Every structure is written in structure tokens, then in C-alpha cells.
């Protein structure tokens, strides 16, 4: 009855699709539906959560910038507060306000270390720049100034922490505990709406004292007088303060917003891309098999007068139905997932940890995302099978040729693909000023296309050439090897691209990881050979605000057995508008005990030249700004322009713009610092008793972490551990993808070769031989895909290690690869290929022999 009703009310494609999905092919339809729903869930979840995070970031940018049109900055090192009067007095300046900003962590078990941004401002003048509205405190700033620990918190934060006026707010700065007193509350608008409400305001001078930056500001925000022209005012300020700081439009600060948004969008795009890719491959695998099994039905429809293009349309209707259902289910689940994703994205955005964002709403864009992703996954899965189904000659199928795929009817478009590869590769190599990520992307696209080309053109030739050898190695079976791969040329190409791409990606990552490990390992141990490395936080995980205090440094210097201490500090300064690392170190100690990683010349002589007032620049800095040894470098400092002769170039890993390295005494003369970022000391004899003595001598609130000898190698490993964890996750995911592809190809080939296997069995092949044959084909696919993948990965690895890493991170690495890693990768791939072929092999060995005669 139901069937009759369906016939009356629905078009034939829908009736057939529903019967296929709800009937004989329901398992495969369920798999496809699951893939679509999962990708739509992730996509809609990401859409809702990232929209919320982006809105929060933009709100924060607007609230913090306020009405400021210009700002005076000096990198993370800051600027002297004495500049404030000079800036205020410059022509065209209506108001200039000082700002110090520091990130604290809430020191309460229920807050899980959530971040709080504390803004130090002059509350008498700051309302001229930023919008404040609240109770008590701002109307009466003197209350805030009356105590050094007074702070105004946003009402949102107060509500989260159940704070009222007069309560204590327990925070940590670095490792140091800080207790502040709540003196007022800010209504959740204007400045208080920034950082999701995780914001507090206090007197600028009190905050300076709290974070050890007395006399120094992070920036001065400037509001122009009415009618004043921004360029003219900036020039006036520059004339007034000279080269002691940089004047720039306040909008330049939005770079951090762009950077945070870019990070969020990059993570979202990557997750989405991976999800769509995985789901598409799963959907393709399931739909491909489903279509294979429906070939006789399709042939019957063709014989009854259905045109090939309508066969495709029938199958597109199938996919559209699945997409529609999957999108609906996925959108519903996405709403639940978005809350979890929001927490993750907030963490990734950097400063929204612990912030409760509530703006999770289903918009029209959410539904559009669901339909788009669902449709994309479903159609990516059905396009090739539909094309294949439409090309089957109906009579061949009905008269017994159902198992034979129409091979070789489309001429390979090798020439077009080769030209495409050449153009993309050429663009990747030749185009100047291409962002590194895009360059890598183009190389990958070219590489994957080349893999496809190689698979399409090279694999059949290779198989033909290999057959005599395989025949010798595996008597009897060798000549039949590779038949499954020839049976489905397009799917074989896809599988090779997938497996090869996976292996190339892993090989490339192995190259980068090994090169980075070896280079950094050598760099660390060579530079500080025999020394003990000391930091104020866990090594490789110490936060920038964790410093070694001056009294601790003094205690270390005075500890018996310590021969020399290399005191080290680093801050970001602006050089020609770019942030570069400015490092100061005890170069006399380095000359005596360490080894400066110079690229040319005698390390000791270079260190002595720096100690005498010179500067060494990193290779990255020299390349970026076109300077060399012998040049004189002019540097804006808080005390005016200073000139330093460049006495050498060193290798370091400071970042894309590189580093400048001075003697610590020169640094201290020009810039402020709370303490040492890290230090290295050398001892007479065994360092352990000395370390024990240092622990006894330093103040109890000072956390110190020591590393020497083997520890230093472990330090490098720890640096790379996060990278390796990501690498391992990607490898697992991609190995699963490769496995799915091999599984799909083999199963599809077995379906296509049913009669062939039946014939082999009828002719006397044992089920074991059929299983071995199918497994052999899976392994051949793994070996071919793996070999070209390793080759491509190594080919791409060299430029990535030597050029891209340098462009993107400023890391000059020596290319290295661990053969053992490649061996493990190859074995893993062979195991995955064999595993993926086990089920198809069982199916092949169980083909009924009566199929050989074409009988039902």
C-alpha cells in the first residue's frame, strides 16, 4: 500500500532513491548519512562558535582603542613615562593618556586559571579616550588612587567570581601571587565589554609597581584636537620625542586583532577542510559501492529508455536526499557541539580563556553552511560513481558483463594535467612575495596532481613491467597481480593520490621535525656546552611574565662553585616598523665559557667585540633588512638614537624578523627589565651540589628550573613535543583516510571483478589464493603510493626545511631525515594497506562460483 502511495505522489528518481536507501542499501546509505551529518555538525558548530568569538574580538578591539587616533609605542620593552609630557605638549594633541597592560591569571580553584587583562590608566584623563560607565569608582577616581591595590572590575567578572566592592581579588602574575581590592564595578559596556568582560582597571602607577615596570609605559594613546590632521600631529610628536619611540596610527594596533582573527579562521578553515575531506572520502566509498551494486537496476532502466544523463540525475537525486537529511541532523547536533568548540576557539584566540560567551545562535548563515557542506560531501561522493554508472552499456550488464567496468573509454587527459602541474609548480617557485603558506599549498597541489598523473600513466606500465618479476617471486599469482588496480583506473588514481599524499605529508613532517630537532639540539648544546640552563618556569613552557628576579641572580652569582653566569634578557622592539627580538647577554661570560653561534669568524672574538659595545644580528635579521658585518646599525632607544657597529652574524630562532644581540650592560643602560628571561651558569666540577646550594639560597617565592647535559636535549624534545603530538594526530587521521581509500578501491574492484574471481575459483584457484591475490594488490597499491609519496615528501622537504621554515618562522634549519622513521612509516603503510584489503579479500574468496557462468 505504501509503495502504491509513493508511486502516486513522488517522482520516479525519488521513489527509487528512497527504496535504495531504506531497502537493500540501507547500511551504505547510513554510512554516507553519518559522514554527511558529522561534517555538517562540525561545520555548523564551527560557524556558530567562530561567529561568536569573532564578534567578541571585534568588540574588544573597539572598546580598548576607544577614541584614540594615534599611539606612541616601543615594542614589548615599552617607552619611558617621561615621554608623556612631551607627547601631551605636542601641537594638535587634545589628550595623551598613559597605558600599561598586563595579563594576570585568577588564583582561585573555581576559575581554572582564567585570564584577566588589567589595564593601568590615568583615571583622571582616560575617560577622554575610552568609555567608562559604572558605579562609584570612575565618578570618584581618588578612591582608586587612595590605595596601591585598588582595582575596578567589570560587573561581568565580579558576577562570575561573586565579588563585591571591598572584596579581595586573588591573582597571579607569572608565578607571583597578587592580592587586589575591588574598589568599584564597571557596567558591561564600553571598556568593560572588552575581553568578554575579563577586564579590570587600576591606576597606571600602581600597576607599574605591581609588574616591576616603574617609570615605563606600554604605550601612550593620543586623541587629536578638533580639526587637527593626523599626519601633521604624528610629525609634531616625532619631532618632540625624537627616536625614543615610534608614533603610529592607533589602527596599527588592530594588527593583533587581525592576527587573532587569522588564527581563529585558520583553525576553523583547517578543521572544516579536514572534516569535508574525510567525509567526502567516506561518502564516496559508500556511494561508490552502493552504485556498483545497483548497476543491474540501472542497466534495466537504461534498456527501458533512460538516457545516460538522466541516470546521473537519478543518482544526484539520491545524493541530494542524503544531503538534505544529513544537513538537518548535522545542524541540530551542531548547536550542541558549538558550546564545546567555543571554549576551544576562545583558548586558541589567546585571551578569552574562561570567558563565557553566550552568543550562540542559529542564523541563516548556519543553515546555509549546513546545506552547503552537506551538499558538497554528498556530491563529492556521488559524482564519479554516477559518471561510471551512466557509461555502462546496458546490454553488457544484462547479458552478463555486469562485472566488467567500461575501461579505457575516456582518453587520459595527461597533457592537460601535466601542463597544470607545471604551471602550479612554476607559480610556487617563481612568484615573489607569495605568502609561505600559499607557496606550500601550491607545491602540495602540484605534488598531488603529479601523483595523479603518475598513477594514471605510470602504474599500468609499471604493473606490466613488474609482472614477470612478480611471476618469478610468486609463481602463479604474480601474473595476476595488479588486476584489481587496473579494474578501476579512476579509483586507483584517487587511491594513489590519497595514499601518496598522506605519505608525502608525513614524510615532509618527519623531515621538518628531524631537521628542527637536530638543528636546535646542536644549537643549544654547542652554545652552552657544559653549562646549566636556568628558567623561571618549566623549560619550554615558561610564560614570558615568569622571570628570574635580580635577587635570585645575585644569589646564583654568589653561590660557591659557580664560575660564570650568562645573564640573558629579551624584549620585542620596533625596527623599521617590524617587531624584532632585542636580546641582551653577558658577553664576557659567553666569550670565556660558551660559544656564540656565529656563522663566520671566531666565536670568542665576536663575543668580546659585543662586550665592547658592538652588536650581532641574526642571519634572518641580516637577510630581512639587508645589513652585514661592518655596517653601523641605528636603533631607536628610549634614550634616543644609538648606533652600534655590526660585529658578527649568528644563527637563532627568534622569529621571522630575527634578532639583535647586545651586551647586557648596554641593554640595561637603555631599557627596563624586571629580571632575567633565562640564564646559564658554569660550575667547577659536578653541577648538582651547586644547584642544591642555589635552591637553598634563592628567595622562596622564586621558582627555578634547571637543565644541563642530557636535560638540554630533552629541552629541545619538549620544545618539539607539541609539534610532534599534532604530527602524530595528523598521521593517524591521514593513515585512516588512506586505509579507507584502499579499502574502498579494493572492495569496489572486487565487486567489479565478481565474474573474474568466480572463473578463477571454477578453474581451480583456492580461496586462499584469491585472498592472497587481493591482499597482494592492496600491498602493491601501498608500495606504489608509498614510494611516490616518500619521494615527493623528500623532494618537498628540502625546500620547506631550508626556505619555508626560514620565511615563516625565521628558523634556519639543516636538512635531516631519520631513515628509521621512514622505515617505520613504510612498514606502517604496508600494514595499513594489508589491513584495508583483508575484508575485500574475504569477499573475493567467497564469490559464488556459479557467477562464472553468468547464471542467477
Amino acid at each position, binding site marked *: 500500500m505504501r509503495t502504491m502511495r509513493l508511486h502516486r505522489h513522488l517522482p520516479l528518481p525519488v521513489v527509487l532513491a528512497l527504496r535504495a536507501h531504506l531497502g537493500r542499501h540501507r547500511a551504505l546509505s547510513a554510512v554516507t548519512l553519518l559522514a554527511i551529518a558529522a561534517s555538517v555538525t562540525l561545520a555548523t558548530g564551527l560557524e556558530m562558535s567562530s561567529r561568536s568569538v569573532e564578534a567578541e574580538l571585534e568588540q574588544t578591539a573597539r572598546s580598548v582603542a576607544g577614541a584614540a587616533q594615534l599611539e606612541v609605542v616601543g615594542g614589548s620593552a615599552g617607552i619611558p613615562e617621561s615621554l608623556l609630557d612631551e607627547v601631551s605638549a605636542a601641537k594638535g594633541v587634545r589628550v595623551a593618556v598613559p597605558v600599561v597592560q598586563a595579563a594576570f591569571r585568577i588564583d582561585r580553584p573555581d576559575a581554572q586559571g582564567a585570564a584577566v587583562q588589567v589595564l593601568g590608566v590615568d583615571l583622571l584623563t582616560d575617560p577622554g579616550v575610552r568609555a567608562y560607565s559604572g558605579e562609584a569608582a570612575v565618578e570618584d577616581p581618588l578612591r582608586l588612587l587612595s590605595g596601591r591595590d585598588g582595582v575596578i572590575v567589570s560587573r561581568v567578572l565580579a558576577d562570575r567570581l561573586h565579588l563585591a566592592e571591598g572584596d579581595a581579588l586573588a591573582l597571579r602574575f607569572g608565578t607571583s601571587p597578587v592580592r587586589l581590592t575591588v574598589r568599584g564595578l564597571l557596567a558591561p559596556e564600553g571598556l568593560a565589554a572588552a575581553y568578554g568582560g575579563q577586564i579590570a582597571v587600576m591606576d597606571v602607577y600602581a600597576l607599574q609597581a605591581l609588574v616591576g615596570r616603574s617609570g615605563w609605559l606600554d604605550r601612550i594613546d593620543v586623541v587629536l584636537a578638533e580639526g587637527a590632521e593626523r599626519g601633521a600631529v604624528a610629525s609634531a610628536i616625532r619631532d618632540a620625542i625624537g627616536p625614543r619611540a615610534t608614533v603610529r596610527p592607533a589602527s596599527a594596533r588592530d594588527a593583533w586583532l587581525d592576527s587573532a582573527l587569522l588564527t581563529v579562521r585558520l583553525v576553523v578553515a583547517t578543521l572544516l577542510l579536514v572534516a569535508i575531506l574525510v567525509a567526502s572520502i567516506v561518502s564516496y566509498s559508500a556511494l561508490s559501492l552502493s552504485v556498483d551494486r545497483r548497476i543491474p537496476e540501472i542497466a534495466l532502466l537504461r534498456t527501458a529508455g533512460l538516457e545516460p544523463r538522466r541516470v546521473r540525475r537519478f543518482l544526484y537525486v539520491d545524493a541530494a536526499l542524503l544531503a538534505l537529511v544529513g544537513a538537518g541532523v548535522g545542524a541540530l547536533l551542531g548547536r550542541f557541539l558549538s558550546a564545546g568548540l567555543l571554549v576551544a576557539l576562545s583558548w586558541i584566540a589567546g585571551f578569552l580563556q574562561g570567558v563565557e560567551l553566550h552568543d550562540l545562535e542559529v542564523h541563516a548563515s548556519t543553515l546555509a553552511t549546513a546545506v552547503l557542506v552537506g551538499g558538497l560531501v554528498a556530491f563529492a561522493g556521488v559524482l564519479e560513481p554516477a559518471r561510471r554508472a551512466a557509461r555502462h552499456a546496458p546490454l553488457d550488464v544484462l*547479458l*552478463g*558483463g555486469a562485472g*566488467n567496468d567500461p*575501461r579505457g573509454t575516456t582518453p587520459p587527459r595527461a597533457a592537460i594535467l601535466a601542463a597544470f602541474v607545471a604551471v602550479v609548480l612554476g607559480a610556487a617557485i617563481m612568484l615573489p612575495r607569495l605568502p609561505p603558506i600559499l607557496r606550500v599549498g601550491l607545491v602540495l597541489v602540484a605534488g598531488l596532481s603529479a601523483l595523479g598523473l603518475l598513477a594514471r600513466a605510470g602504474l599500468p606500465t609499471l604493473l606490466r613491467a613488474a609482472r*614477470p618479476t612478480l*611471476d*618469478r617471486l610468486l*609463481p*602463479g*599469482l*604474480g*601474473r*595476476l597481480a*595488479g*588486476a584489481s588496480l*587496473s*579494474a578501476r583506473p579512476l579509483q586507483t588514481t584517487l587511491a594513489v593520490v590519497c595514499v601518496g599524499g598522506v605519505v608525502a605529508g608525513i614524510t615532509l613532517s618527519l623531515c621538518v621535525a628531524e631537521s628542527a630537532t637536530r638543528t636546535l639540539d646542536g644549537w643549544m648544546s654547542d652554545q652552552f656546552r657544559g653549562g646549566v640552563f636556568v628558567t623561571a618556569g618549566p623549560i619550554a613552557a615558561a610564560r614570558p611574565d615568569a622571570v628570574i628576579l635580580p635577587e635570585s641572580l645575585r644569589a646564583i652569582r654568589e653561590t660557591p662553585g659557580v664560575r660564570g653566569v650568562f645573564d640573558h634578557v629579551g624584549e620585542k622592539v620596533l625596527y623599521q616598523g617590524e617587531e624584532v627580538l632585542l636580546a641582551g647577554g653577558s658577553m664576557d661570560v659567553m666569550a670565556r665559557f660558551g660559544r656564540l653561534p656565529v656563522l663566520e669568524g671566531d666565536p670568542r672574538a665576536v663575543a668580546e667585540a659585543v662586550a665592547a659595545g658592538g652588536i650581532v644580528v641574526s642571519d634572518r635579521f641580516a637577510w630581512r633588512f639587508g645589513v652585514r658585518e661592518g655596517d653601523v646599525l641605528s636603533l631607536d632607544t628610549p634614550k634616543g638614537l644609538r648606533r652600534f657597529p655590526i660585529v658578527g652574524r649568528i644563527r637563532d630562532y627568534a622569529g621571522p624578523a630575527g634578532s639583535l644581540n647586545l651586551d647586557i650592560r648596554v641593554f640595561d643602560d637603555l631599557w627596563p627589565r624586571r629580571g632575567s628571561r633565562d640564564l646559564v651558569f658554569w660550575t667547577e666540577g659536578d653541577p648538582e651540589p651547586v644547584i642544591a646550594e642555589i635552591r637553598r639560597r634563592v628567595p622562596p617565592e622564586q621558582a627555578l628550573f634547571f637543565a644541563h647535559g642530557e636535560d638540554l636535549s630533552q629541552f629541545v624534545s619538549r620544545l618539539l613535543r607539541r609539534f610532534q603530538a599534532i604530527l602524530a594526530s595528523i598521521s593517524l587521521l591521514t593513515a585512516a583516510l588512506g586505509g579507507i581509500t584502499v579499502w574502498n578501491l579494493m572492495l569496489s574492484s572486487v565487486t567489479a571483478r565478481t*565474474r*573474474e574471481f568466480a*572463473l*578463477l*575459483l*571454477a*578453474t*581451480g*584457484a*583456492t*580461496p*586462499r*589464493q584469491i585472498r592472497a591475490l587481493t591482499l597482494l594488490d592492496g600491498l602493491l597499491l601501498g608500495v606504489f603510493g608509498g614510494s611516490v609519496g616518500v619521494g615527493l615528501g623528500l623532494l618537498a622537504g628540502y625546500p620547506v626545511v631550508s626556505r619555508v621554515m626560514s620565511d615563516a618562522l625565521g628558523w634556519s634549519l639543516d636538512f635531516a631525515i631519520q631513515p628509521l622513521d621512514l622505515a617505520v612509516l613504510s612498514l606502517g603503510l604496508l600494514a595499513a594497506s594489508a589491513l584495508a584489503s583483508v575484508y575485500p579479500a574475504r569477499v573475493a574468496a567467497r564469490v*559464488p*562460483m*556459479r557467477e*562464472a*557462468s*553468468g*547464471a542467477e
Partner: protein
Amino acid sequence: MLKLPLVAPHSVGGPAGSAAIVATRLEKHYRRGGAAVRALDGVDVAVADGEFVSIMGPSGSGKSTLLHVLGGLERPTAGSVLIGDTDLHRLSDDDAARFRRRTIGFVFQFFNLIPTLTAAENVALPLLLEGRRFGSVRHRVEPLLELFGLAARARHAPSELSGGEMQRIALARALIVAPRVLLADEPTGNLDSRTGAEILELLRRICDERGVTVVLVTHDLRAASFADRVVILRDGRIESDSPSQRLARRD
């Protein structure tokens, strides 16, 4: 005209007059949809060594099923099949496969050549499945191809051969191991009448000159006339079993 050696290169038959195939009370039941189908319903048949038997019957009579059961391609629901002294369906899957490989040759309507192997490799297939290398069996393949007039097509892929050529390759493949029994399921069903006649002639000569026992399933009365004996099936039972001359006269 194809020429076969007048004397078989090696004797494959059993003692003169002995039975090559003895099938006893064969039953084969299927379930199709909700209904039970009795494809074979107590079939008893024996084929002597060197005999050429044709099995005929309307569609659905069970003739292909009988051939499959006789060749070990399907297991009967009940009954037994002896090929010589071997009870085919008491063998394990692997032993049955080995037995088929060495003793039984098959020819099907749709030729069924392996598309990725050359003509010569297709002929050598049962030997390759024995674990022999192609190089070591070439000396057995080439004379067969020569005999079937296909020497020039040895390196060709199946897709490059005509229907008649493909069926001759299939026949050569069936003969490469010098089987005791050759089972043919509508071998001319997909060929034009002239090529079909050539194939039937070939089967007859294989039986006469090599002493191979041939069982042919066909719809075609003319094809059946090449046999010594015609067995007619209807609804899974033997309706008649008589020498083919009688049938030919009736025709």
C-alpha cells in the same frame, strides 16, 4: 579447419567403459523471495569415460545448476557426485579447488577470460594457479595455441580478440591440464552460427581424439546433435535420457 592430434598426448580417461561421472539423487533447493525452489529434484545421471552428453531443457529446468553441481561449483542440498572415484562434495574447499584444477575443464557462454592477462597467459591460467611460472609452461601453451590457430594472437589482450577467438582460448584453457571431464555451459550461445559450429566440432573432436568426457548444456538442438546422448531436464527432474541420433531423427 582446426587440427587436433589424432592421439591424445597423454591418457586422461579411466579404464574403458568405466564411469567418469556418477551423480546420485542430486537435490538442490533454493529460497527465492519467500518461496522454496527445487532446482534439482532427485537427479541420477552417469557419464562414461570419453562420452559426449548434452543436457537440454527449458529455462529454469535446472540444467545449469546440474552442470555447476557436477563441476563442484555449487554444493548439492543432497546426493553425491563421483568424478572417477572421488566424491567431489566430500572434499574440503581447497582440495576441491585442486581437484577441479587438475581434472575438470570449464567453458562458459561469456568466454570469461581474465582481461588483464594475454591470450597465452589465459590459456596457462590453471597451470599458473598450480604455482608454475609462465616461462616454465610456455612449451605447453604454444602448441595448443598453434592447434587452435591462435599462435599469432598469443600476446593479444582478450579485448582485442573476436568472440570465436575468445571461446577457442577458453577451450584451450580448459584443455591445458588434459582434464578427464570438460563441462561446457552454452558455449555457442554468444557466437554466430558458423563460429558456433566450429566450436561444437572442436568439442566433438576433443572427445573423440583425446578421450575427454564432455558434458554440454545447451538450448540448441543442433548443438545437442553433436553429442552421443541427450539428457532432457524439466522442473529439476530427468524427463528423458536417450542417444542423440533419436533426437536428431525426430528433429
